[in-house]
């Protein structure tokens, strides 16, 4: 477990935790608590092409081995995105991922990444991974650690190919942008 910067305590968790219990002297958030909050925040700066045609829930799917444990469910419990309840699904096949809005690809799927991405072609799923070459290999957002702080790269090319619109406010925070 990586320890993150002190400022993260107040900030990274703010969006996520407000509305839940008041974080009185909250424990230092873990890497995956931060990443879970980021997944949620990404949704705020991305526009899906058919937002009205979404299902009853906003689906965040985890493909492969789940590194979050219970953190993701806890973080997103009761949250809404685009007026829909956020639903966390754990899936085994890439095809199931095409019905999600955000797909987190675990590092266990590193080997069959190309296959997964190919399966998702034509769908409007925001793919997020945490392997170093995730964006180089066609993923859209890759988490990375820089000085113990969670950062991310963006492959804008892939984002646009999936007909997603990403806010420039988000793009400018990317460590690396591929376009």
């Amino acid at each position: 477990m990586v320890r993150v910067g002190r400022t993260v305590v107040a900030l990274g968790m703010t969006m996520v935790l407000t509305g839940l219990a008041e974080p009185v002297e909250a424990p230092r958030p873990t890497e995956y608590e931060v990443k879970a909050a980021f997944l949620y925040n990404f949704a705020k700066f991305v526009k899906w092409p058919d937002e009205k045609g979404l299902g009853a829930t906003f689906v965040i799917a985890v493909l492969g081995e789940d590194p979050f444990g219970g953190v993701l469910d806890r973080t997103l419990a009761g949250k809404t995105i685009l007026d829909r309840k956020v639903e966390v699904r754990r899936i085994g096949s890439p095809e199931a991922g095409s019905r999600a809005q955000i797909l987190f690809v675990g590092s266990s799927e590193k080997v069959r990444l190309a296959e997964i991405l190919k399966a998702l072609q034509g769908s409007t799923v925001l793919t997020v991974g945490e392997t170093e070459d995730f964006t180089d290999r066609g993923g859209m957002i890759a988490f990375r650690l820089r000085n113990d702080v969670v950062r991310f790269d963006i492959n804008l090319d892939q984002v646009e190919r999936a007909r997603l619109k990403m806010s420039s406010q988000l793009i400018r925070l990317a460590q690396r942008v591929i376009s």
Partner: protein
Amino acid sequence: MRILRGLTIRQKLISIGMLSSLTALVAASVAFLAFDAYTFRQRLARRILTEAQITGLNSITPLLFNDAEAATATLGGLRAEPAVVAAFVLPPEGSEPFATYARDRGSAVAPMVPPDAPKEGHLYRSDELLVSEPIRFEGKVIGSLLVRADLGELRDRQRRYAGMVAVILAGSLLLAVVISRFVQKTISRPILHLAETARAVSAHKDYSVRAVAEGKDEIGQLVNTFNEMLDQIAQQNAALEEGRRELEGRVEARTLDLAAANKELEAFSYSVSHDLRAPLRAIDGFSKALLSDYGPQLDERARHYLDRVRAGTQRMSGLIDDLLGLARVSRRELVRQEVDVSEIARRVAAELARHHPERAVRVEIRDGLSADADSHLLTIVFENLMGNAWKFTGKRDDATIEVGHEVDGRGRAFYVRDNGAGFDMAYADKLFGAFQRLHADEDFEGTGIGLATVQRIVSRHGGHIWAEGAVDKGATFYFTLEQSS
């Protein structure tokens, strides 16, 4: 206003003009500067607030994604606004800034988050502006932006304005002096003209001079009133002059009447005295003849009566002599010249001593007395005064007569002093009347005309006479020979 008091009207008017314009200009400048400072502060606050809002919007994602670097870069955009000294992105809780911007990066002192910063909006402190803008995302406050701006620009601006105002003030004052110099003439010229006229009137006593009124204002009215006053003074002067002339004429006429009456009276008394002499001489001569020719036939009693007749005639003769003397003193023309008063007194004393060799009288006469007087008449004065002194010291063994003068601020008085019988001051005013006598004939002989004669002479010289004394303590007679100044 005390400062103005010593100035001339011209200077006062110019000073008033300058003072008024200076006051107006300074007041206007101060108001302008104050208003400018106020609007500048308002504008600055709006400008900084706008900057803060934009920067706040750009700070949303850095906050959400915990990217302090990005937040710092965002704050860097404030460099475009030079008034901003420092800026902070603050988390909603805790005072540790998430990101900081400082204009003066070289400064050793790191910018501080002021503890009294407002939660939202702007606040002016003595020399800086604090602007606080909450950063909201989806209705929630996720942090705030705090901007500190200094007022250096305002200060520069005010310094420039102050310089400008100083130049304008100097120019305006110069202009005010020039204008005042022209404008004051419309007020000061008639006043100065009036003052000049008044001075001329006062200096030359010429009431025919008139001031010229230039306008219908108060000064014009003053000039007209002044002229009217001059008219009145001239009229009154004329009336006075006429009255004086009339009075003079009347006095002259009275004097002539009086002189004529006096002359008549003198002529009358002279001729009476003169005419009385002849019958008196007859009485005296025939009574003398009677005594010498028929003396032996007459008895003792008859001879005594005849002696009494002769003594009476001699006394009457003396009286007539004195009266004639008094008349002559009045008639005689006054011839004034420098006379040696001491010498006259000495001659009179010698004459008295020669006539009364039996008396031992000490006479002290001050040397060097002189006067502008009629020598003959002054001799008569000393004959009478010293004669009196001689006479009234007759009963004293240490008889002393003193002649001298006293000088005081009003003039000089000669005096004749003795240590004789003296007189009662209660009768001092009776001394100089003709035929007035304070002593019995048995004690001291006399006709009572001497002092009247002396007074006559003194008054003809324009002086006056008075006496001091006490019974048995002697007497001092003072007289002056000219009008006391």
